[in-house]
């Protein structure tokens, strides 16, 4: 479903952000993407989201390939790839329900379907009672749940999460992780970038992709020699 083949991304001023990375994230798979700050986690997520293109190699997301995709097809890729940010990126002037409805509106959902779908998504993330709250009235964990509900609005096949628990207390972080787990059980692939080693250790059965200085140094789903 998501396939990296010898992907390198170099920036003119800072050099290689990721280098010769190959991996495959299957349908309904859950994986952690880990590494220190600057290891290349965000660049890797941005490549999957087609916010940037590889300098070498190719990225395949569903039927779209980074080498052949056209600019007008990018919105379709992004509807299939939900993105959850560490800093939420919610629109402060809108309520929780309106933020989710916004995602449905901008992707062309029929008006008559929006209300019902918003209620369903809010229920799915456990925030039905907070529909009319604005982001400033919500806790960090609740905000992150709204972001997840918004990311789910377009019925994506995979969720990318960039340090989604980075700004949360341990309990809220655990709640968000549990939400990802539930979504994964329902068949959604999840790739979660985190540098929280405790979180990773607490989930020993989950696949881990570890980056170091832009290189994939460990993929727990593959023997070390194959990663190299």
């Amino acid at each position, binding site marked *: 479903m998501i396939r990296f083949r010898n992907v390198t991304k170099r920036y003119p001023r800072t050099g290689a952000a990721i280098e010769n990375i190959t991996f495959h994230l299957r349908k309904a798979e859950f994986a952690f993407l880990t590494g220190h700050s600057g290891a290349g986690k965000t660049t890797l997520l941005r490549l999957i*989201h*087609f*916010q*940037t*293109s590889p300098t070498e190699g190719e990225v395949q997301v569903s039927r779209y390939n*980074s080498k052949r*995709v*056209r*600019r*007008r097809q*990018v*919105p*379709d*890729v*992004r*509807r299939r790839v939900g*993105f959850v940010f560490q800093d939420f*990126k919610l*629109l402060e*002037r809108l309520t929780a329900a309106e933020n989710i409805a*916004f*995602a449905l509106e*901008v*992707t*062309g959902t029929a008006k008559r379907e929006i209300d019902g779908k918003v209620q369903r998504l809010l229920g799915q993330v456990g925030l039905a009672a907070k529909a009319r709250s604005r982001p400033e009235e919500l806790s960090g964990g609740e905000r992150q749940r709204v972001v997840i509900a*918004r990311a789910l*609005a*377009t019925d994506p096949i995979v969720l990318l999460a960039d340090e989604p628990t980075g700004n949360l207390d341990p309990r809220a972080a655990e709640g968000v992780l549990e939400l990802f787990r539930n979504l994964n059980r329902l068949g959604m692939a999840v790739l979660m970038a985190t540098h929280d080693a405790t979180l990773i250790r607490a989930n020993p059965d989950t696949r881990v992709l570890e980056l170091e200085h832009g290189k994939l140094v460990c993929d727990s789903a593959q023997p070390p020699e194959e990663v190299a």
Partner: protein
Amino acid sequence: MRPLREALASFHRAPLLGALSIGTIGLSLLIMGLFALSAHNIGSAISDIERRVEVVGYLVDDVGEDRVAIAREEMLSYPEVEDVRYVSKTEALVNARRDLVEFSDVYQGLDINPLPASIHLRLKPGFRDPDAVQEVAHRLSGYDFVEEVRFGEAWVEQLFSLRKMAGVAAAVLGGAFAIVAVLLIGSSVRMTILARAEEIAVMQTLGATEGYIQRPFLVEGFITGLLGGLVALGLTRAGFWLFTRQFAGFGRLSWLPDVWIIIGLVAASILGLLAASFSVRRELGKAYAI
């Protein structure tokens, strides 16, 4: 309908920013408005003078009026000629007595009228340049009953140079003012788009198409340009009113023709639209590496 609704909602959400943009565009276009008003009045003044350009042929005595009438018909068919007027010897004397008051004694009690009959050719706009005037004068001198042709050669050439200089000055100054207006409008519209950069980024992340994102901004740019144009029109009108009131003896100044106003408003709207298009495309480009 959604782009218009969104554009109006944007004005409603940030009225101060909207007013600032419209005000900035209005002031930028005020420069253009005042320039257009000056150019229009200078152009009108030159045209007024140009209207007086005429080629005069002085006729030999005793030429039959029927010959003059036939020649007049021929001259009226010249492409350059707007009007042909015959002044008889008698009319010439009456005119001289009326116009040249200081020589009235000279023209009193004459036994013989010394003034010749003449034929006056006024030229159409576009044919009042030295070449066209020379050409008509040359044709007029070809008639055997025309003794002498005059058209104030030096005056026509000076007038033509003045027209050319005014044209070049208008093009250079107008171009410079237009560039300044475009830059100011661009910055102003960009300010409103930057204020919504986060919203644009969220829409892109969610998978909104570029057309969907752009359309409300284009409508907003168009409306901002149009309202800015109306503000500039109002300010220019106020400036014109103040000037004519303060300097009543300055001469007869005329307000802009309707067609100029319509062109100005359409141009302001299109400028707003183009500035918005450019700025929003730049903003959109940040999240598309493909």
